[in-house]
């Protein structure tokens, strides 16, 4: 992995700093994500996982440092944020589907309005994806008629149909019961075998172990420790990481 990463990474965060008022959430965070790589962000609640994903998608403005996408500085104020966001997919923990649109319309909105694709083509592609995740019969339903796991899968498809360069997933399983977690997990594993580059924030260590190539532990606003899941989760070097994992084991989530 080390050797492969020497080539231009898809995502490169360098000394990223983000503050809210007087609280420093990200403090000199550095993280690279290579092509086809899946990186899991772990860390205590409030450690800044969501904040980092929002900063990468330019939904929040960083206070220092740079974020590069394929070598291009996207945090440059002269960069066109709308253009950058077209290349990055973000799936929210709370799904954030549009309640006034059907599942199909939710999915085809961006392909048609942002990417200028013909309606019929966008629809066909959306149906293909829905078929693949077992939701073809829900195409005409409104989001509030779907279960949490179904909504989450629709949200992931909505991000995927734009063929993003990078997919950001924010705790996509935390609102789901174990059975539904399985549905979403299978989907993400399939994406991984398709070669999608992903960064996912998660509290599910089992999930991180199964799909991630690399696990990064966030603490005090920076990446304290990172490496293969087996090493970081099984034999962490840092005391803080060990503490964090011990608490998780206590809570029965490993």
């Amino acid at each position, binding site marked *: 992995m080390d050797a492969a990463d020497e080539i231009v990474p898809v995502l490169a965060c360098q000394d990223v700093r983000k503050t809210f008022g007087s609280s420093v959430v990200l403090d000199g965070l550095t993280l690279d994500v290579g092509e086809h790589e899946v990186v899991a962000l772990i860390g205590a609640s409030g450690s800044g996982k969501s904040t980092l994903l929002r900063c990468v998608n330019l*939904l929040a403005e960083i206070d220092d440092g740079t974020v590069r996408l394929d070598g291009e500085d996207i945090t440059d104020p002269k960069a066109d944020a709308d253009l950058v966001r077209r290349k990055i997919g*973000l799936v*929210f923990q709370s799904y*954030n589907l549009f*309640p006034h649109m059907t599942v199909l319309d939710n999915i085809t909105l961006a392909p048609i*309005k942002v990417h200028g694709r013909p309606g019929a083509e966008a629809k066909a592609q959306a149906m293909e994806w829905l078929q693949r995740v077992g939701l073809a019969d829900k195409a005409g339903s409104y989001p509030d008629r779907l279960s949490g796991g179904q909504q989450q899968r629709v949200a992931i498809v909505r991000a995927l149909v734009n063929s993003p360069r990078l997919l950001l997933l924010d705790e996509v399983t935390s609102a789901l019961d174990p059975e539904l977690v399985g549905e979403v997990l299978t989907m993400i594993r399939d994406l991984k075998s398709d070669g999608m580059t992903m960064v996912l924030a998660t509290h599910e260590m089992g999930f991180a172990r199964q799909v991630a190539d690399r696990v990064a532990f966030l603490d005090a606003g920076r990446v304290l420790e990172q490496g293969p899941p087996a090493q970081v989760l099984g034999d962490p070097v840092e005391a803080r990481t060990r503490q964090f994992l011990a608490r998780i084991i206590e809570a029965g989530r490993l």
Partner: protein
Amino acid sequence: MSTEFHRPSDIQLGRIAFRKRQAIRSVLLAALSTAVLGTLLGVLVTSAPGWDRVKESFFDWGNATEFLPQILEGLWLNIRMLVFCAFAALALGLLVAVLRTLRGPVFFPVRAIATLYTYSFRGLPLIIVIYLFAFGVPGLRLQGTPSVTVLGGAAIVITYGAYLAEVFRAGIESVHPSQIAAARSLGLTYRQSMRHVVLPQAVRRVAPPLLNDTVALQKDVGLISLAGPIDAIRAAQIGVAQNANFTPYVIAGVLFVLLALPLIGITDWATLRAARRQNAGT
């Protein structure tokens, strides 16, 4: 499911029978109390000492039939005004509400004007605006001054636009920021997010208050009679002056109520539907 084959237990059968008895009892009670109160009111009103004079000056059949055609003709003007003013005021309100949400220094003057507009015209009595437009503007003797009817309509549109703008703005602000974040994360621009994600949800949410304001507008359209055009109220006024009998006003009033009924019905239906949706929740 086994619901089709389910035989209710004796306890449930007892409950059903009890509820049925209760329902019949309440219908009978309602009918009885309505009949008693109705009779009482009828007797009270018709036996009051001045009833004959009231009947003569407010509910006179001769006067009613004599002026009904003119009043109806005037009402046609009210209806046309209503349709035009309602659509124009809704469009103006929506535009102003969207302008007020624009961020960035370039839009500062636009924002300031929109804010000033909603603040001042919500405080200004409609009658003053109508007088200023219908009498003040023609007094300037500018070329191409539109008719008094159009000026009066413009006064109504501008005043109601300010109210409707605030209703729309409340709707826009009620859409959760995470919806905008989701739209932007998909690459939609600010305008596209507004157009496809925020506004459709906002308008749905504030449909009941918007319709309610439209009912109010419907009544206030009659105020243009103050500026001179012969609408239903003006026609009634002429009739009243001619025979010194108030029946034409009552006729015009009843017609306005009838005109409002469908819209009030729609408002109630929309409110009910919105409330149901909210209760259904997610």
